[in-house]
């Protein structure tokens, strides 16, 4: 017997079977493992995709939130800047130009607007201007700020809370009637001024704001029947206030003693500080009108600054040539005129156009204030019409000429915007806007003045006018530098 005999054939058969079985088991097991691995991979991928999707959504939300933060920060800052234009900006600018006895009364007019128009805006002003309504007037839907919360209103500004938009627009509603005060300076009763400008805000301002900026407005640049380009309020703010100022100056008549008695500005230092505050505040006014912290805001900011500088130069130069000396009052008046004229254009033109607009406006307003006013003899005491009415009208028309799709493709990318780009028709639209603003201002203001005159009387008594607004209307004086003052 060999010790190492081959395995019996039986045994070898069973071994083979066992091996085959093992192989099959292994195969199955392998397939199973592989299959298992496959499922694991599928599950892992969809989990990763889900995670990525979540991440993308989170990124989107974060980007939207960051944009809202950025836009909202800029818009709240802009709102504050525009309020600064009225007080102290305009209050100082105007009160420096009046006689000493009217300094507080004049400041008080601007300040009264800050208080009264604010409350009016909450009650009905915002709703009348920006509520859903017709082509001419807002609605009643937002009375008492109903529905105006922190949710954005996509009709106006999709990235900021509607309350931010509301309070920003309020600052415009405040300064516009305050601008008119320059025309009737030193002679209107305080009560008459309050009533007049409150009614004016409802009857003239809110409808005009709705027509130009309101959703579905007649002159709205996107979708209006006559798309009028008015970026920050050339028609809504400056033409309405300036033209109403002229109407008021004619209606109420000249100051006692005008133009024979000298009525010199009592402190150009106040006016100077006021004008510089206006200049700075105007960045909020114009660049803020982009309603976002974006490139358009930058365009408007740059244009605003360039136009103001150019107009300061051209007014002062005109004066230098014509009367031998460039005055401080001339330079600051020119800057304000330039700011007025660039207001409608600020978000539509390039910086070089802004300089041209500024240069033209400085000379034009100088001519209106120094020549035209004297020819006609009206007493627009602080030149509200000469600067805001005239500058606003010129600016609105020049916007139709210089607007370019490169800065703001408001009619669609690459489509001609202004006359220089080949859209001559835009000048007609601008004229329509200007004519409507003039019309509503003249008619509205005449009616309101008539009513207020009948109700409370517009003018101070002659005696009170001599004493000055400070004592007659408020019972106090601005400066007490007498020897026995404590």
């Amino acid at each position, binding site marked *: 017997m060999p010790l190492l005999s081959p395995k019996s054939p039986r045994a070898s058969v069973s071994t083979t079977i066992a091996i085959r079985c093992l192989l099959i088991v292994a195969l199955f097991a392998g397939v199973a493992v592989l299959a298992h691995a496959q499922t694991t991979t599928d599950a892992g991928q969809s989990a990763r995709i889900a995670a990525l999707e979540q991440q993308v959504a989170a990124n989107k939300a974060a980007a939207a939130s960051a944009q809202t933060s950025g836009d909202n920060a800029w818009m709240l800052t802009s709102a504050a800047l525009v309020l600064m234009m009225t007080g102290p900006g305009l209050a100082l600018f105007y009160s420096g130009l009046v006689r000493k006895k009217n300094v507080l009364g004049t400041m008080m007019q601007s300040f009264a607007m800050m208080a009264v128009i604010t409350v009016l805006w909450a009650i009905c002003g915002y709703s009348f201007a920006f509520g859903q309504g017709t082509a001419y007037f807002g609605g009643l839907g937002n009375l008492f700020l109903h529905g105006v919360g922190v949710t954005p209103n996509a009709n106006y500004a999709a990235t900021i809370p509607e309350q931010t938009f509301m309070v920003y627009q309020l600052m415009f509603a405040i300064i516009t009637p305050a601008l008119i005060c320059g025309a009737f300076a030193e002679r209107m009763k305080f009560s008459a001024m309050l009533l007049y400008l409150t009614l004016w805000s409802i009857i003239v301002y809110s409808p005009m704001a709705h027509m130009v900026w309101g959703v579905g407005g007649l002159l709205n640049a996107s979708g209006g029947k006559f798309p009028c380009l008015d970026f920050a309020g050339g028609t809504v703010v400056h033409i309405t206030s300036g033209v109403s100022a002229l109407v008021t100056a004619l209606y109420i008549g000249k100051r006692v003693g005008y133009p024979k008695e000298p009525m010199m500005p009592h402190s150009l230092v106040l006016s100077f500080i006021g004008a510089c505050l206006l200049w700075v505040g105007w960045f909020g006014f114009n660049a803020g009108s982009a309603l976002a912290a974006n490139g358009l805001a930058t365009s408007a900011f740059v244009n605003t600054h360039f136009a103001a500088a150019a107009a300061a130069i051209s007014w002062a130069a005109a004066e230098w040539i014509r009367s031998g000396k460039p005055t401080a009052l001339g330079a600051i008046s020119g800057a304000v005129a330039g700011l007025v004229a660039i207001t409608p254009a600020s978000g539509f033109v390039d910086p070089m156009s802004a300089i041209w607009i500024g240069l033209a406006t400085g000379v034009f307003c100088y001519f209106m204030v120094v020549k035209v006013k004297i020819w006609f003899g009206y007493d627009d005491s602080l*030149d509200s019409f000469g600067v805001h009415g005239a500058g606003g009208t010129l600016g609105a028309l020049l916007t139709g000429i210089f607007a370019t799709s490169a800065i703001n493709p408001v009619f669609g990318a690459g489509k001609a915007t202004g006359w220089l780009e080949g859209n001559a028709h835009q000048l007609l639209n601008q004229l329509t806007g200007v004519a409507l603003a003039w019309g509503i201002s003249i008619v509205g203001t005449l009616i309101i003045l008539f009513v207020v005159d009948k109700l409370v009387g517009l003018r101070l008594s002659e005696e009170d006018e001599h004493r000055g607004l400070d004592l007659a209307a408020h019972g106090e004086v601005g400066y007490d530098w007498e020897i026995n003052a404590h």
Partner: protein
Amino acid sequence: MHKIEAIIQPSKLDAVKEALLEVGVEGITILEARGHGRQKGHTEFYRGREYSVDLLPKVKLEIVVVDAMVEKSLQAIISAARTGRIGDGKIFISRIDDAIRIRNEERGDIAL
């Protein structure tokens, strides 16, 4: 005792005060005044409107001195206030009857 009233250019006030102090004048009263002599005023321009300003800012100073001090005081004022141009001002001299120091009712020269 005499009263000297001098109307001078505001810019000369400090020089005149010092000159008076140097010659021994102890008390002085200053009034800010407006007026014009033969030089009349100037013109100012505000937004193209021309205003002729004929009353110019001046300073009026008043001193009352004993008789012995009158000439010295006058010379001090004249030399400090003179520029030689029109508008330098004027001096008026008048006799004073009496003076009273309110604190102790001293009278006459000693009250000055």
